[in-house]
């Protein structure tokens, strides 16, 4: 008999709010979290905008002491989101079986930003080594000594395991923009196979730094709409010109059904379908006909034993790049047939930007809220839909609609896709 997986807790740190409630309320009121970059001086960059997390209190973890040296900005967000998720799940860490409690996160490596140079390596030392080509080694900077370890992608999952005494399976998935979706899939499978009863899953990222901006700009992926930041992220709109980088984290508590019922947990939704696929097409592109993407959607439907008719809403990847939006539309049409024109669709990225490794985690949380509240958040800035993206968009204003099953998509550079299906939990 298949072990069923349910979501019993959620936590989020997003450009729209520092918890799930604030983020959700801003999301359904159509608020954009995009603004001019404040984390570095982006005035000379082609793209000067980002969806930054605002007013985050970095002192909340000061009791971690020296551990904080290992925490990147993303790790702070993840830790805060995990705290909210655990709290909202009502789990008592002291009474659950620690060996059946695991972590599965989707993250990326930390990129150093110029403002960290002095603290980590020392500005002049970096300059010297650039001039002479010699590497330098120095015991004086603690951060420099541990940098390769700190920046590695699995620090957040290690961090969470130590905070919550989670001695079960521990995974970090790194597949760029779809990382946290993959992590949620692994968490689901881990519970199904009996390796764990509870998994803390999701992810987070922060790529608002000079090098990520340069790299993504050079690939032509970023919006350059610096004049009107709030209008920059416009998935499926004809006048879109690229995505906007966001930052934040989204963490969910995934639990085996009988375990959740035994402790009378508040079951928010059931996780019923998951599928991954790769495009095998081009490294930084997806194919115009959506091939590859359709496979993950199909697999998630099969896994959930659902047909397209059962899906009420698609939380799209919808990055606001021409190729992604069109490819995703084609894939949905391929799988959904005529139903594609009926099912509601919107992209959270129009407001929170693209959280890269954290995107799928946050978007899953917003999908759960959609399911609970029967309100679909809109795609804002969708003023003139791209004729190639002629689906049933929830544009600019939230829509009330009864929800039973939701599909959430995530795709990535490199062509790693995943699709997740959640359903209203019924006995």
């Amino acid at each position, binding site marked *: 008999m298949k072990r069923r997986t349910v979501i019993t807790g959620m936590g989020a740190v997003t450009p729209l709010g520092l918890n799930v409630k604030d983020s959700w309320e801003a999301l359904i009121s159509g608020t954009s979290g995009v603004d001019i970059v404040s984390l570095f001086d982006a005035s000379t*960059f082609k793209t000067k905008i980002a969806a930054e997390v605002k007013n985050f209190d970095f002192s909340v973890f000061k009791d971690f002491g020296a551990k904080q040296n290992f925490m990147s900005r993303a790790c702070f967000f993840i830790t805060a989101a995990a705290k909210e998720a655990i709290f909202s799940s009502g789990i008592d860490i002291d009474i659950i079986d620690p060996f059946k409690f*695991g972590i599965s996160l989707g993250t990326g490596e930390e990129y150093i930003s110029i403002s960290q140079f002095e603290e980590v390596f020392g500005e*002049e030392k*970096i300059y010297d080594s650039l001039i002479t080509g010699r590497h330098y*080694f120095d015991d004086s900077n603690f951060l420099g000594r541990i940098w390769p370890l700190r920046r590695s*992608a699995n620090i957040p999952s290690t961090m969470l395991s130590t905070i919550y005494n989670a001695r079960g399976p521990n*995974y970090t998935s790194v597949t760029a923009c779809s990382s946290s979706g993959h992590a949620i899939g692994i968490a689901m499978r881990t519970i199904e196979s009996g390796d764990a009863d509870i998994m803390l899953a999701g992810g987070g990222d922060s790529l608002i730094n000079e090098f990520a901006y340069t790299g993504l700009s050079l690939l032509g992926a970023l919006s350059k709409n610096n004049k009107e930041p709030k209008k920059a992220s416009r998935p499926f709109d004809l006048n879109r010109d690229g995505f906007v980088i966001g930052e934040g984290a989204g963490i969910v508590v995934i639990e085996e059904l009988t375990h959740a019922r035994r402790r009378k947990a508040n079951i928010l939704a059931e996780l019923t379908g998951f599928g991954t696929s*790769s495009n095998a097409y081009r490294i930084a592109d997806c194919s115009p006909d959506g091939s590859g993407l359709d496979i993950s959607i199909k697999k998630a439907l099969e896994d959930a034993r659902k047909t397209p008719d059962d899906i009420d809403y698609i939380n799209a990847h919808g990055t606001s790049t021409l190729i992604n939006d069109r490819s995703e539309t084609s894939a949905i049409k391929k799988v959904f047939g005529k139903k594609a024109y009926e099912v509601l669709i919107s992209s959270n990225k129009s407001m929170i930007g693209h959280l890269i490794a954290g995107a799928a985690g946050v978007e899953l949380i917003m999908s759960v809220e959609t399911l609970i509240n029967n309100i679909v958040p809109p795609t804002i800035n969708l003023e003139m839909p791209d004729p190639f993206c002629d689906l049933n968009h929830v544009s600019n204003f939230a829509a009330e609609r009864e929800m039973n099953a939701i599909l959430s998509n995530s795709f990535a550079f490199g062509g790693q896709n995943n699709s997740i299906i959640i359903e209203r939990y019924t006995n």
Partner: protein
Amino acid sequence: MVRRAVITGLGIVSPLGEGVLENWQKIADGESGIKNITFFDTNDYPVKVAGEIHKFNHKKYIDDKFCLELIFRNVKFALSAARMAIEDSELETKKVKPEYFGVITGSGGSGFDGAPFSEDISCGLLKAWDNNFQKFKSRKFGENGQNSVHPLFLLKMLPNNAIYYLSSKYNIKGENYNIVNTYTGGADAIGRAFRCIGRGDADIILAGGYDSLIFPNTIFTFYSLNMASLSQNPNRACRPFDLYRDGLVASEGAGFLVIEELEHAKARNAKIYGEIIGYGNAASAYHLFEPCPLGFGLIRAMERAIENAGISREKIDYINADGIGTIKNDRIESIAVKNVFGRHAYKIPMSSLKGSLGHTGCASGAIETIISLYSLKKGIILPTINYENPDPECNLDYVPNYSRKYKCSTFMAINQGIGGQNSALIING
């Protein structure tokens, strides 16, 4: 009903050479792949030795010139080892259903060590230097620097690019994961592949690990955390379980396996090396980089793997140890094995190949599993080299220095990660 997963193809790139046979033979002969560091100047550097891969002709394995321009050396190893595994399996990739063909990798990350002087960026970064303030300025980087960096450097740093190149070469469109658990990734990739095939998500999975730890900053971090061997003598530097062991030796490489559903393999008359029967992964939840003194995570991983395999622990007749050669890890590993196996622990030969290979990071789980599987076939198990002075706290049978004729049918491969991740695989030969 859980479907059975068998291993039908093997591929290795390591400091000892290319392919399983060459690696196995050299380890059996007691050879070591560890040499003096040549990748960078070690005059003022505390660590002198590493397992560097030299004279490796990746062009033999990678035809795509565009791809070669856009990958770091760790990915070159990955693509080469994966090709060896595919060729070894004699799989006609065109005949496989692409949506039931997957790829799962364990990697240490993007393949550069996070220092801002990666050569793809350094030229642009220099232009961000403000001489008046003696500081780097974001504004100047935006103005002048952006045009001087490698235009596609981000694709080089893409942490999942190996999956991309493998999926496009072999038309793999199914399950894919890239697991970054320093340093159990390779073993976890095999474990996840086992789970995916078990539940029917895929029929064939190309799984493995790749990594390179030989970066000045990475090794310096090991040194700072008292994990690196400071030995001047490459051949004797990494001494797992020996009383005078003084740390790990950084190395590099890749190991890939073709893992296939049993009936699928039988239907195409594939040669079957072995079957994966158990897998466990657990965290020690103890510290960010110190191993848990009582080995809790590792114990749990082994117990879960045994429970998962549904066999009695006496059935396991060889253990491929992690044995990285640090004081703490090797001791903890011995404690954990004794804890799990009780008196039986003293009867199971348990060897670490890291004396010969060094620590290949996330590749280690895959490379060592492959070599152990091959040992099983040969009926000869490989030694822990440089084991000269028994440590009273490590008093198991580590197969010291010489390979041994030994018939065994089921082995366990264990790996401990720096962040407290642990994994155990049980494989039937």
